[in-house]
C-alpha cells in the first residue's frame, strides 16, 4: 500500500514539474518585459540581472511625456469603448430580430452573415483601404472605428441569436399583450436576460480591438489618432535601441489587458469555448 501511495505522489510530482516548467516559460517573457522596463539603459548594456538594481520609473514618465504614449493609450481606450458599445448595440438589435421577428430576406441574410464567419477572407484590408479613401474616411478615427464595429458584428449576432433562441417566449408575449412595443421588449426584457452572453462579447471584443494592429497600420498615418499597438511600432522605429523605454511602452500596452483578463477569465474561456465548439 505504501508503495502505491509513493507511486501516486511521484506521478503527481512529475506532472506538476512538467506543468510548472511550461507555466514558467509562459510567464518569463512577461516578467522580463516588466523587469527590463524598470532598468536603466546602462544596466541593459553592461550587465544581465533578473531584477533592476534600482527601480527606475523614469522610463514610464518618458514614454508618456516624450513618446506620445498618453495619446496612444487614450486613443485605444476610445476605440475599444466606443467600438464595443456599438458592436453590442447593433448586433443585439439584429440578433433579436433574427431570433424573434419576421421580415423579408431573413434567412438569406443570416446565412450570408454566417458565411463570412466561416469562409477565410485574407487581405480584405486592401479593398477596405480603397473604400475608406473614396469615402474620405482614410486616416480618420471614424474610418477605423467603422471597420472595427463591422468586423465584430457577425460573431456577435451569431452568438446572441443562439442565446435569444433559447429564452422562453412567454414573458415577451405577455408584455406584447400588455401593449409593450417590440423595441420595448428588446430593450427591457431580452437585453437584460442576455447579460451573460453580452458580458462574454464585451470582453472578447475589447481584447480584439485593444490588440488589433493590421487595420490600424493600413488606415492611420496620423500619430495623434493611432491606437497603442500602432503607436508601439512607430515608437520602436524611433527609439530602436532604447530597450528599457520600449519595454515600458509594451508594459503600458499590456497592463489593461492583463487586468481585464484576470478579472474576467471565466467569460473569456467561455467565449473561446463557445466560439470554437459551436463553429
Amino acid at each position, binding site marked *: 500500500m505504501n508503495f502505491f501511495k509513493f507511486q501516486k505522489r511521484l506521478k503527481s510530482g512529475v506532472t506538476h514539474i512538467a506543468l510548472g516548467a511550461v507555466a514558467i516559460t509562459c510567464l518569463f517573457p512577461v516578467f522580463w518585459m516588466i523587469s527590463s522596463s524598470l532598468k536603466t539603459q546602462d544596466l541593459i548594456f553592461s550587465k544581465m540581472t533578473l531584477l533592476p538594481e534600482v527601480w527606475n520609473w523614469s522610463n514610464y514618465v518618458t514614454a508618456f511625456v516624450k513618446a506620445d504614449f498618453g495619446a496612444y493609450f487614450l486613443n485605444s481606450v476610445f476605440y475599444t469603448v466606443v467600438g464595443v458599445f456599438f458592436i453590442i448595440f447593433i448586433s443585439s438589435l439584429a440578433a433579436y430580430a433574427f431570433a424573434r421577428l419576421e421580415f423579408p430576406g431573413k434567412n438569406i441574410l443570416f446565412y450570408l452573415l454566417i458565411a463570412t464567419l466561416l469562409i477565410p477572407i485574407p487581405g480584405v484590408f486592401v479593398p477596405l483601404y480603397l473604400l475608406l479613401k473614396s469615402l474620405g474616411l482614410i486616416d480618420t478615427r471614424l474610418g477605423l472605428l467603422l471597420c472595427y464595429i463591422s468586423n465584430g458584428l457577425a460573431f456577435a449576432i451569431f452568438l446572441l441569436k443562439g442565446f435569444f433562441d433559447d429564452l422562453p417566449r412567454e414573458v415577451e408575449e405577455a408584455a406584447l399583450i400588455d401593449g409593450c412595443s417590440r423595441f420595448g421588449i428588446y430593450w427591457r426584457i431580452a437585453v437584460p436576460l442576455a447579460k451573460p452572453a453580452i458580458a462574454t462579447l464585451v470582453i472578447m471584443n475589447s481584447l480584439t480591438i485593444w490588440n488589433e494592429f493590421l487595420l490600424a497600420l493600413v488606415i492611420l498615418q496620423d500619430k495623434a489618432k493611432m491606437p497603442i*499597438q500602432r503607436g*508601439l511600432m512607430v515608437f520602436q522605429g524611433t527609439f530602436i535601441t532604447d530597450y528599457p523605454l520600449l519595454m515600458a511602452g509594451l508594459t503600458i500596452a499590456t497592463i489593461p489587458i*492583463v487586468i481585464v483578463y484576470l478579472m474576467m477569465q471565466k467569460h473569456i474561456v467561455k467565449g473561446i469555448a463557445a466560439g470554437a465548439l459551436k463553429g
Partner: protein
Amino acid sequence: MKITPIEKTQNFCFIIPALVLFLIFSLYPILRTFQLSFFQWNGIDKDMLWVGFAQYKHILFNNPAFWKSMLNAGYITILALTLQNGLALLLALLVNKNIKGENIYRTIFFLPPVLSGVVVGLIWKFVYDGNFGILNYWLTSLGFTNFADFAWLSEIKTALSSVAVVHMWKGFGYGFIILLAGLQTIPVDLYEAAEVDGADAWQQFKNITFPLLIPIITIVMILTILGSMQVFDLIYSMTRGGPAGHTHVPITKIYEYMSNGEFGYSTAMAVIFGIVLLVVSFAQIYLSKKFNYDR
C-alpha cells in the same frame, strides 16, 4: 398572429444598422477583392486596366517570392499543428486529471494568447537580441560561446524557426483551452467502465478519449491552420519579412504589394491565398470525418 406590412417594415428596422455596416464594410470589400484582381491599378489613376487572369498567372508561375512566403507560412503552420497542438493536448490531458491548481495553470497558459501580437513580437525581439538578449546570455553561460552575439532574427538559417517558436509560444494556450473544454464533456462513467474492464491508461486514451475528441481536435487544427497561415503582427513586429524575404508570409506579401500601390496584383494574391485556405480547411474536415466514420 398575422403580420402586417407595417410590422414587417418595423421589424426590418432592427437589422438596418447591422445590414448597412455589413454590406458596406464586409460584403462589398469581398466582392471588390474579386473585381480588383482582374485589373492592373495603382489606386490613383482614373482608369483601371483590365488584364483578365494575367495577374493570377503571374503570381502562380512567375512569382517565386510568393511561393516562398507560402512555404514559410506552411512551415510555421506544420510546426504549430504538430509541436504546438501536441503540447496543448498533452497539457490538457494532464490538467484534466483533477490535479491541484487546475485554475492557476489554466490562467497562466492562456496568458500568451491574450497578449497582442505586436507586444509579444517586440518582447521576443528583445529576448533574441544578439548583444543584449537574455537568450544568448544564457547560452554563453551554459558554455555555447559561439552564440555570444548571434543575431537569431537576422540570420537566414534561424530567422524563420525563431519566429515559429514565438508563434507557438503565443498559440498553444488557445488550443489547450479548447481541448480542455472538450475533455471535460466526456462522461466519466466511460472511464469507470473501462477501468472495471481492466483497460490501462493508454488503452483508455486510444479507445475513449481520442475518438471522442476528434471533432474538437479537428476544430483546433482548422483554427491553427487559419491562424498560422495568416500570421502578420508577429512577423511585422519581429522581422518585417527579413532577412532577404526569409520570413515573409502571404499577408506580409499582400501588404507589401499594396504599400507599393499594386492594388490589383495584391488582391489577386489575396484571392489565390483565400482559395488555398479554403481548400486546406475543407480537406481537414473531410479527412477527419472519414477517419471518424471508419472507426
